[in-house]
């Protein structure tokens, strides 16, 4: 298969990449989701801006309140990172579910987030933790936006900021087959001890974009360290979804997704290593 014709640019700085952005331009990082769109001609950009040779975007840094990852941090690099394992247990758990080892070597964390396929793993983690993007604007400024906000046209996501969450993290998904994008994915993060603890839940695959499930997290918190049955989580999930339209596609209809989600959340919570929450 061959993509439709486009021009190709390989800028060597973020400023040069942003200067090339336009309505018919697309950024290319790992390409593991984007190149399939190109070859199926579901994406037909005039210009592909390859950011892979921009220096300084492949680092994972510890900031006072957050872990910062550049737009070229590969999924497998993050999964194997000691920083991620220590500070972002829920992200480490989720990364093991993304695609397969070869795809993870090339695909990027930021790419998985911004492509934001329904059911994708990392958007669920981003919603659970309240991740943020650093974006570079055409006038050279760096701004911070929430990862669930749309990325403004003409800007480039240069980094993702993950709030530091030492403690336990659990992840679970149902998918059509192992290594395929999730139908429904759930991320659960717990910090603190048995008495004072904070639980966050993110869910992907129920609505078009991932969801923070605060009501579900409240039910989990009340029962912690026990994990309630799925049917006890279902009413809270309904409250978290509120009026948002449900997502359904050829992978799975909306009714199935809604039915299976509480059990997916329960299994994510159950998968957390005991005694670390």
């Amino acid at each position: 298969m061959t993509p439709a014709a486009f021009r190709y640019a390989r800028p060597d700085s973020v400023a040069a990449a942003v200067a090339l952005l336009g309505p018919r331009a697309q950024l290319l990082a790992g390409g593991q989701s984007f190149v399939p769109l190109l070859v199926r001609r579901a994406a037909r950009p005039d210009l592909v801006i390859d950011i892979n040779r921009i220096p300084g975007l492949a680092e994972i840094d510890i900031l006072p309140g957050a872990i910062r990852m550049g737009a070229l941090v590969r999924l497998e690099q993050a999964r194997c990172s000691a920083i991620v394992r220590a500070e972002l247990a829920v992200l480490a758990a989720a990364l093991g579910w993304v695609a397969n080892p070869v795809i993870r070597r090339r695909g990027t964390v930021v790419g998985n987030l911004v492509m934001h396929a329904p059911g994708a793993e990392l958007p669920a983690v981003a919603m659970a933790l309240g991740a943020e993007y650093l974006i570079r604007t055409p006038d050279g400024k760096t701004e911070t936006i929430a990862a669930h906000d749309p990325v403004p046209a003409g800007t480039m996501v240069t980094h993702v900021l993950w709030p530091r969450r030492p403690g336990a993290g659990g992840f679970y998904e149902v998918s059509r087959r192992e290594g395929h994008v999730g139908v429904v994915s759930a991320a659960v993060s717990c910090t603190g001890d048995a008495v004072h603890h904070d639980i966050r839940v993110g869910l992907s695959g129920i609505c078009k974009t991932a969801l923070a499930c605060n009501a579900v997290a409240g039910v989990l918190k009340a029962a912690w360290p026990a994990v309630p049955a799925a049917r006890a989580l279902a009413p809270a999930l309904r409250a978290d979804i509120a009026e948002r339209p449900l997502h359904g596609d050829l992978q799975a209809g909306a009714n199935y997704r809604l039915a299976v989600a509480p059990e997916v959340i329960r299994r994510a919570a159950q998968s957390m290593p005991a005694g670390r929450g």
Partner: protein
Amino acid sequence: MTVDGARVAARIRPRELLSDFLRGEAGATSVHIGCGQGLCGACTVAVDGVPVRACLMLAAQADDCVVQTVASQNALEGFTGAGLTPLQSSFREHHALQCGFCTPGLLVSTAIFLAENPRPARREILEHLNGHLCRCTGYANIVAAIEAVAQ
């Protein structure tokens, strides 16, 4: 770029995929194009030592890179003898291939996998194989072949 030790220079269209470039311009027809969208793993090659789906990379992105296909299997396995490499021999002994379409990609990525993880657990081998589709063997013989080399 360098393909299996030979320098290849060509003017290409931006939309040309690495898989098509390797087969068409570089003559590396061991790079099998199965699904063309990154699912089957048959086109897996090493780019600067990292396993990559050649169908999910633009040829332009591999500019100045070192690309290794199954023709570089000796180098990938660090094997200096004659004839089949240990992995190739093991695939043959264990009947880990039938039609052979998936085999080049499997050999390349498994050589890198074993170089990085010489004593993998069975679970790790299965996870590694997750990225490769084989329609002939049912995978059991491939697992056996890899386990035999890993021991």
